[in-house]
């Protein structure tokens, strides 16, 4: 049995964007939105590396990262402590991420611009479910606006 519970899977489909926090070598934190944390197996997740950014740079200096994911099924959220393990540029995980990125980019006319450089594999160190009590939103009378 791995560390990731089954119930977390819906939170790893990219329906609700996630956030990732990393630190540079000197301890400067960086918080960034990411569209999806991919489920690899019960002990690993993957993040897509499309553009070289601060997150990518930081984890190569300091492998620890924290991601926050939300399930669109239950709206539970989790903090995952991660450790950057390695990057893959082929194989089933890379292929799955690459296909997904290409499928959407081709629809929007951004094929080739949004391109997967590598699938970065992280080991999950800890999983913390948010158990804080949330305030129920009082009924709001205004109906949903036109969409």
């Amino acid at each position, binding site marked *: 049995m791995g560390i990731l519970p*089954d119930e977390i*899977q*819906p939170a790893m*489909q*990219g*329906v609700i964007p996630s956030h990732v926090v990393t630190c540079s070598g000197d301890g400067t934190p960086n918080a960034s939105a990411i*569209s*999806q944390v991919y489920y690899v197996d019960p002990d690993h997740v993957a993040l897509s590396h499309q553009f070289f950014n601060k997150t990518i740079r930081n984890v190569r200096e300091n492998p620890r990262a924290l991601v926050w994911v939300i399930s*669109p*099924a239950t709206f539970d959220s989790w903090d995952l402590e991660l450790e950057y393990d390695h990057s893959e540029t082929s194989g089933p995980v890379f*292929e*799955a991420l690459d*296909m*997904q990125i*290409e*499928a*959407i*980019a*081709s*629809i*929007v*006319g*951004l*094929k080739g*611009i*949004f391109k997967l450089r590598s699938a970065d594999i992280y080991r999950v160190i800890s999983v913390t479910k948010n158990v804080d009590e949330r305030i129920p939103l009082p009924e709001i009378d205004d109906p949903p606006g036109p969409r």
Partner: protein
Amino acid sequence: MAAEDAGSPGLREQIAQNQQTIDRLNRDLAKKSDQVRIIQQISSEITSTLDLDRVLEIVLRATERVLGFQHSMILLEDLAENTLRLFASRGYDPSGVGAEVAFGEGVIGVVAERKRMMRVGNVGASIAYLTSIRARLEASGEMAPGPPAAKLPGLPNVQSQLALPLLVKDRLVGVLAVESPKPNAFDELDEILLGIVGNQAATAIDNARTYQLVEKLSRLKRFFSPQLAELIVTGGADDPLKTHRREVTVVFLDLRGFTAFAETSEPEEVMGVLREYHAEMGTLILEHEGTLERFTGDGMMVFFNDPVPLPNPAERAVRMAVVMRDRVTALIRRWRKRGYELDLGVGVAQGYATIGAIGFEGRWDYGAIGTVTNLAARLCGEAKPGQILISLRVAGEVEDLIEAEEVGPLTLKGLAKPVPAFHVVRLKGPE
């Protein structure tokens, strides 16, 4: 360690939770194995028919009734154009049948290109995200403004897609896709179940398509050369059995005195004469790239410029008629020795005709309808033994090639006015 901790509330809770998970998985599995059983029944249903439409219908019905997917579609590889075409769908209005998807475009196109299954639970959100990025790139001038998002068949508000390549021994047959307007609508078990359906479907669809092709091929081979028939079924040439209109040169020929001969001779003699005559004429038709539309005993109708367009149909028709006359002259010499009085008459005309499959289920023929066929038949009827009568239109096309005599104007049945006609005496030139 574990024994000491077994009584601790945390661990007890953990064990209870694990048991709950196991129970849930068992329940899920029982439900799924029911589904698998039904899927196996379906597979025997689809492998027992070779009717493509029926196979597609069974697969989509099963996808809905057994697996509960309300929106499903099957796209098959277009053999001619390296694209996918929507062949059948369920849960869409309009059905979208006929729509094309290029390889590498969208979820379905990428699945076809990579021959790998894909499950996406955030299609709508991802498209919205990239669209906003694209708008920013365009606004900043980093990217030229382009067309809006590609219009692909499917739900306009799609959020989840599960697309499966239909493979037969690693060869792509098509893609089976299910969709939902809800995010994250599909999970791993859905992948497995759809995969089982898809495996069965791929083979059944492939068999049905192959059968369809073989059927079509054998039908086409009755009218056309094997090469042309192959070309048509692989999409390299238009299907001539679809009704179309084209200018053609029509040649009618028959044997003068055949009716009398047939009435007074033994059937073996009649069949022997026809065999010799058909063999000679058949070879000449193929040599001149003519299309034999039909033969009725001693009569034949051949046309040029369909299904394959030819640069000089009138010339080919006239050259063929002249060679036919020469060959029949040789046959006649032999036939005379046996006491048969036979001779050839030919009529040639050119004009527009409506061409395609004529007939009814089980007895389709490839045929041409138009004044031009009537004119050629009437000219043939008027031709005296050894005469090749050609219409004014044909004469205009080949006047530099032939020596001709005007015979005419002829009053022909079915034609309002008398028409001029010419008898082809011989071909000009070195021979």
